[in-house]
């Protein structure tokens, strides 16, 4: 009996903790957005961070994009050739990338490479009293440290997703046209015909912007909220990757169903 009560109490505690964290994360987001106004004058702080979270993530995004595109080319060709529709390979590759794989895979890689780095960096700054030191120097760390990183993530994610899709299309071309002998003209013209700017490209950009927002928010919040010890920072980094990946996949379903309007 006592054990049952205890586990019930534990369940309640976990639930309350989760709600509490959610509330802190929302308040934190509010502060960060308010602080972001100050950065209009000090945009170089954001640019530095765009370099750190964006440019340094570029290599992994480009290599992954190339291989994802090449695999799409192979798989797509194998299916399409059964119906004699291999001319549509360009369309298949481009649509899969722009609508789904570009934003989603980029966001997952972004969470793993840039998100975890953000959490670890902010968490360690907290653990080594750098954030407290900043406050004692009358500098608000939310303005100086958090907001620039948050904005940089917002800017970088859609750009990275666009580059991922672009290099993926080239990868598909390399395999489809270069190795499997699909006609180059058909590859490009089918793509040009079938990809709609509003329905496909804009929706893909919206997705990547939403994913960028959620991944960066989780990353900076987990860092700022981390228990300031090495174990605490390790756990926070871990949580960043897990929560970001889950949020991206869940949101992808919700966004896709809204965009297709079929549910």
């Amino acid at each position: 009996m006592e054990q049952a009560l205890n586990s019930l109490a534990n369940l309640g505690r976990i639930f309350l903790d989760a709600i509490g964290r959610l509330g802190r994360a929302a308040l934190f987001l509010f502060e960060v957005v308010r602080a972001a106004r100050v950065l209009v004058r000090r945009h170089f702080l954001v640019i530095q961070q765009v370099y750190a979270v964006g440019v340094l993530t570029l290599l992994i995004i480009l290599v992954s994009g190339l291989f994802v595109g090449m695999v799409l080319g192979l798989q797509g060709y194998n299916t399409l050739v059964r119906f004699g529709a291999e001319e549509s390979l360009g369309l298949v590759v481009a649509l899969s990338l722009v609508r789904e794989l570009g934003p989603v895979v980029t966001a997952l890689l972004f969470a793993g490479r840039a998100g975890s780095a953000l959490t670890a960096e902010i968490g360690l700054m907290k653990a080594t009293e750098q954030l407290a030191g900043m406050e004692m120097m009358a500098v608000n760390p939310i303005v100086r440290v958090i907001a620039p990183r948050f904005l940089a993530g917002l800017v970088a994610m859609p750009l990275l997703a666009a580059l991922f899709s672009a290099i993926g299309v080239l990868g598909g071309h390399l395999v489809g046209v270069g190795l499997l002998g699909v006609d180059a003209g058909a590859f490009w013209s089918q793509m040009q015909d079938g990809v709609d700017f509003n329905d496909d490209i804009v929706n893909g950009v919206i997705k990547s912007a939403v994913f960028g927002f959620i991944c960066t928010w989780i990353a900076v919040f987990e860092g700022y909220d981390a228990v300031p010890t090495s174990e605490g920072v390790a756990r926070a980094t871990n949580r960043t990757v897990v929560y970001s990946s889950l949020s991206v996949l869940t949101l992808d379903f919700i966004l896709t169903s809204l965009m297709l309007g079929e549910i």
Partner: protein
Amino acid sequence: MNQPRNGAAKDDVLVDIRDVQFARGDRPILKGVTMAIRRGSVTAIMGGSGCGKTTLLNLIGGSLKPDSGAILVDGISVPDLSTNDLFELRKRMALLFQTGALFTDLSLFENVAFPIREHTRLPEPILRKVVLMKLETVGLRGARDLMPSELSGGMARRAALARAIALEPMMIMYDEPFTGLDPISKGVIGKLIRELNQSLGITSIVVSHDVAETCLISDYAYLMGDGRIMGEGTPAEVQRSGSEHVRQFMDGLPDGPVPYQYPAEAYLEDLTRWNKH
């Protein structure tokens, strides 16, 4: 209100702490502390680890709020300040962290330049001169391009000191400035604290458990234990004090009013019990 014992006139007091109590959860940390820190002096706050010294600094700096009592810095009540006013006050005081808390992603030069860049609009050539002057004060002008990870413990502490004086504060609080340093570095830090106090007139609060070094440089000393003031006076007076508690701390005796044992149940009973814990 009691006249402060160190005989300071009222407007001579920069930091006025009256009957401050503070608890973390159910655990009381400060149980009624009263202090008057004189303008332009070096005041030592000594005491064993965990006696509430660092908490006291955080209360003066406004990072924590007391449960009761008053804390006045330069006549301003710190716990009542809004965030903006607190930040204004903090521009005039500095806290030197035990770890130094240098920004690991910035060079030494940029670390010292950081508060100046944040709070002033000095043109780059003047900023460079100011930063080099601060670094010269602590003897690290030649190390300006090093990163914090390349510095020894003593150098990191000196660099943090250069950053602390960058905005020429009226007061510096030192949290354990001597801990973990070799004797030479200790001497250097002690000399710097004294020199900054004399040449710039900076009021200094030195929190430390290093009796010898701290007594050497301070004008007035408080001895804390168990969340209270156990003794106060000039270093000489404190060292002559007959109080048992003061004697134990000054002479470094393992047992006394501060017990050697962490509170526990009877030893024999504990050993002869069956259960694991």
